[in-house]
């Protein structure tokens, strides 16, 4: 699993690639929590475009970041979710808990409170 961090409008953007399972979940949690503290960003956008694999441990790690961000009053948004990862999110019930956006730009609007996740995963006005 590889993570790169970028700044978006009032949010931290984490672009993930590779596989998120028990072997990578701890590094995922630690690095994102560290980056959120370092930047002071209230919101988190997780770009999953290049995430090749996730299992229930990986989904638990994503849910944990949602709890972390929302407990501080922020929002978490998932962007560019591949179909097979989307299926896993839906099976675990996370797709109804965490907003999903088609693109990072859509995710920025949702994270800033300007738009809500649409029925097909895009940002609606």
């Amino acid at each position, binding site marked *: 699993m590889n993570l790169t961090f970028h700044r978006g409008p009032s949010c931290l953007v984490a672009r993930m690639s590779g596989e998120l*399972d028990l*072997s990578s*979940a701890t590094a995922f*949690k630690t690095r994102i929590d560290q980056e959120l503290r370092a930047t002071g960003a209230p919101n988190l956008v997780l770009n999953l475009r290049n995430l090749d*694999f996730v299992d*229930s441990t990986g989904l*638990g790690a994503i849910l944990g970041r949602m709890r972390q961000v929302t407990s501080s009053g922020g929002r978490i948004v998932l962007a560019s979710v591949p179909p*097979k990862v989307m299926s896993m999110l839906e099976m675990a019930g996370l797709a109804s808990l965490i907003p999903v956006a088609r693109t990072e730009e859509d995710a920025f609007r949702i994270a800033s409170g300007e738009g809500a996740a649409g029925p097909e995963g895009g940002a609606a006005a």
Partner: protein
Amino acid sequence: MSENRMYLRLSCLPANIGVARIAVATFAAGLDFTLPDIEEIKVAVSEVVSNAVLHAYPGGFGEVTVQASAGDGGLVVEVEDQGVGIPDVERAREPGFTTAPDHMGLGFSFMESFMDDLSLESSPGKGTRVRMVKRRCNP
């Protein structure tokens, strides 16, 4: 021609979850499963080996074996450890049940959803054995 089989004996460590997953997926690809089927097999194998890594040897070290073979109209995967066993198998299989923080307790739900058959044998102090079958749509 003898039946094709795969046998892996791995240290029960997080780094080996991906090894097991990729090895079984590669074996399944040789049985003409579709790509979506192989993705489901990868998740099921990841879940069962993760359970062994998380729970079989608390505070200690051990091994997990992963076997794959062609049978039952598809793929048979057997994963076994010699760890502490599961005290309450029925409860462990309940969706949402977990003893590990930051986990969702959906491992068995995913295994049952993605595979066609799942059986589990576990004895306290002796270990756990999980057998899963994935059938091809047109074997």
